[in-house]
């Protein structure tokens, strides 16, 4: 090893602002690292080894991230930015906290959101613990979201690029975590991020977008079947119990789903309106059948400092007009939130309504649809 290469690491002294940057090997986290590097902060690049694709698909090349090739890209970006870089093994945690929940939730006839579990249980818990172990105070990620500090605490805002905003996945962040987290790209749009990457010459500048669920290469349903074991076949039925077909297992369906039912010959389009894990039935109906006047959300996490104080002080029964987003790709619609207790809220649509899937996250924003206030899981 040449002495030049050995001396090229930027000086790291473990000061209060040494930052672990979570690097997936994609363009967003690459630019996040670059933007931080310009501030003179002391950076440590970390890629999280979370999943061995051999477990779920025979063709490693279909892996959407966390493949050795992605890590090599992250490694090259870190080298270019003159920051130390490590691959850290999180497979055991990820399997327990994300994969198993993902499969189990589908098998219970509900729709999981693994990105939220990954953020709350892996990135902002395990990775933070590792960062502290390394002597680093902060964790930075390439999420499209923003954090603003005010006199009463930290506020989590949507990313400037509304098409790319990822705040929905971040509702479990606690105040102490927000205070030690950085989202360097939240003030930029995706085209700007790619532009920066190209200007700086990062190898990840023109990498394609990663898929929805990073650990699934191929169909979600096949993944669930492979990891969870084959589930029992069942019937398609209408609300009145009339059987109109058969399916390969309820894990293949999500409430609100219209495509992929392979049932034709009926006058109006059919939607999945309910799933019954006990009888393995998939209940079908019209779009109107999906409508619920109100719905309940449990496992609430409070993000906005004022709401934290209010709920923390034991307040309940109060109502707030909010925007609620019920899927990752949903613009959010207005609803009235009633706080039943610190863990539970009920929601009543204002005017427009959306189909909800039990298990999915309902994330609450202010009426400007800008600041994330709270979030939880839609109850069955």
């Amino acid at each position, binding site marked *: 090893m040449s002495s030049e290469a050995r001396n090229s*690491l930027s000086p790291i002294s*473990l000061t209060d602002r040494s930052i672990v940057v979570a690097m997936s090997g994609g363009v967003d986290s690459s630019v996040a690292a670059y933007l931080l590097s310009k501030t003179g902060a002391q950076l440590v690049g970390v890629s999280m080894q979370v999943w061995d694709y051999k477990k779920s698909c025979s063709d490693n090349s279909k892996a959407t991230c966390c493949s050795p090739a992605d890590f090599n890209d992250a490694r090259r970006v870190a080298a270019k930015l003159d920051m130390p870089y490590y691959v850290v093994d999180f497979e055991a945690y990820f399997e327990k906290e994300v994969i198993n929940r993902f499969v189990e939730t589908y098998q219970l006839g509900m729709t999981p959101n693994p990105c939220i579990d990954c953020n709350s249980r892996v990135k902002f818990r395990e990775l933070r613990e590792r960062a*502290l*172990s*390394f002597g680093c105070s902060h964790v930075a990620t390439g999420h499209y979201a923003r954090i603003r500090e005010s006199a009463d605490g930290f506020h989590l805002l949507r990313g400037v690029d509304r098409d790319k905003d990822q705040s929905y996945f971040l509702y479990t962040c606690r105040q102490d975590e927000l205070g030690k987290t950085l989202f360097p790209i939240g003030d930029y749009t995706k085209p700007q991020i790619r532009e920066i990457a190209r200007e700086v010459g990062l190898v990840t500048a023109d990498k394609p977008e990663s898929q929805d669920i990073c650990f699934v290469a191929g169909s979600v349903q096949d993944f669930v079947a492979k990891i969870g074991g084959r589930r029992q076949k069942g019937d398609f039925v209408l609300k009145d119990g009339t059987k109109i077909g058969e399916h390969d297992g309820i894990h293949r369906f999500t409430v609100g789903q219209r495509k992929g039912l392979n049932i034709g010959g009926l006058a109006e389009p059919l939607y999945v309106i309910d799933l019954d894990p006990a009888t393995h039935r998939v209940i079908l109906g019209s779009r109107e059948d999906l409508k619920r006047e109100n719905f309940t959300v449990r496992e609430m996490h409070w993000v906005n400092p004022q709401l934290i104080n209010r709920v923390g002080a034991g307040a309940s029964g109060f109502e707030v007009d909010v925007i609620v987003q019920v899927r990752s790709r949903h613009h959010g619609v207005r609803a009235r939130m009633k706080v039943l207790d610190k863990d539970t809220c009920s929601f009543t649509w204002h005017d427009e309504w959306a189909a909800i899937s039990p298990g999915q996250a309902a994330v609450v924003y202010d009426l400007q649809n800008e600041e994330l206030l709270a979030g939880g899981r839609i109850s069955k």
Partner: protein
Amino acid sequence: MIIDCDANATYSPDERIRGVISSCLEDLGNPSSLHRSGQRARAAIEEGRASVKSLIGAGDKDTVVFTSGATEANNTAIAAVADRTGPILSASTEHPCVLQPLKRLAARGRAVTFLSPNSDGMITPEALSAALTPDTSLVSIMAANNETGVINPIAAIAERVREFAPQSLIHTDAAQLLGKGHVSMKALGVDLLTVSAHKIGALSGTGALCIRDGVEIDPLLLGGPQESKLRGGTENVLGIAVFGAVSAMIMAQLAERCEIMKGARDLFEESIARAIPGAVVNGAHAPRLPNTSSVYIPGVRADDLIVAMDLERILISSGAACTSGKPEPSHVLKAMGQDEERTRSTVRVSFRADLPLDTVPGIVIALTNAVERMRQVVKKG
């Protein structure tokens, strides 16, 4: 400045080899060529061979075959008995480049026994004797372990083999012992001995298998008549010349180097015994390489500790050098009867002979601070 305490992974070259490299580059011919450029390259190889032979205590008639490294040398030694039928004895603490070729032979029906070490990681002559049979065809036991530094009694083992299985070949992988202890083909009494250039401060990509006079083996790599027809392919002239030059330097200073490394290692172990509650040195009761400390530190993840130390610019490891970034628990510590928690909380510190003794206290302080921080994080989490 980087403090390299990972000498067992690679003993990175020091300044002194620059001269050897540049003179080599001036005339890097093909050693098989008849012209002057080829002949000079050939001469460089033979000079290297003489120096390596000298460092490993080989007899005049023993043959040193240069290879691409210890992995190839070990594969060659094992392939030498692939066509025989007698059982093979080795140890569960061996390097993967011995374990894997033996496992392949086992999968093809060959009787292969991997002896377990004692709790200090040593393969005893007694354990070996119990497994030897008159038709044993190969005994392959490493001279010193890469993770723990534990030294096996190869000479005593070889004696037992000669007595109970005189037909058997005896091979030892001496990659870790070379440069950190006295290596002698003659004194060890082995037929085949593996060494590696980058473990002693020469370049990676070069190793050698030493074959005792009278022992006949087939080449692993077939090709041209290079290396006495025992290893096809154009020789790595640069690598071999540097290997030879470094061997000659070490030959002149071996005892002194070992004293320096032992001084650092002993100071390190005494210091952490006081500074880090619960720290235990693996293999502490066995003879060990003078530079190696394998230390179990309860309550920390070894991989995190390596990162934390790297951020302080101190290089250590968790055992064998890992290529994937996804560390598997050490098979060596497992073979010594240690549970997974202990294997995942063990780091290896392996000193160089040019490390000033007065850097050791700083290493101990950095390690102690990192361990205390991690234990606090774990407690809070």
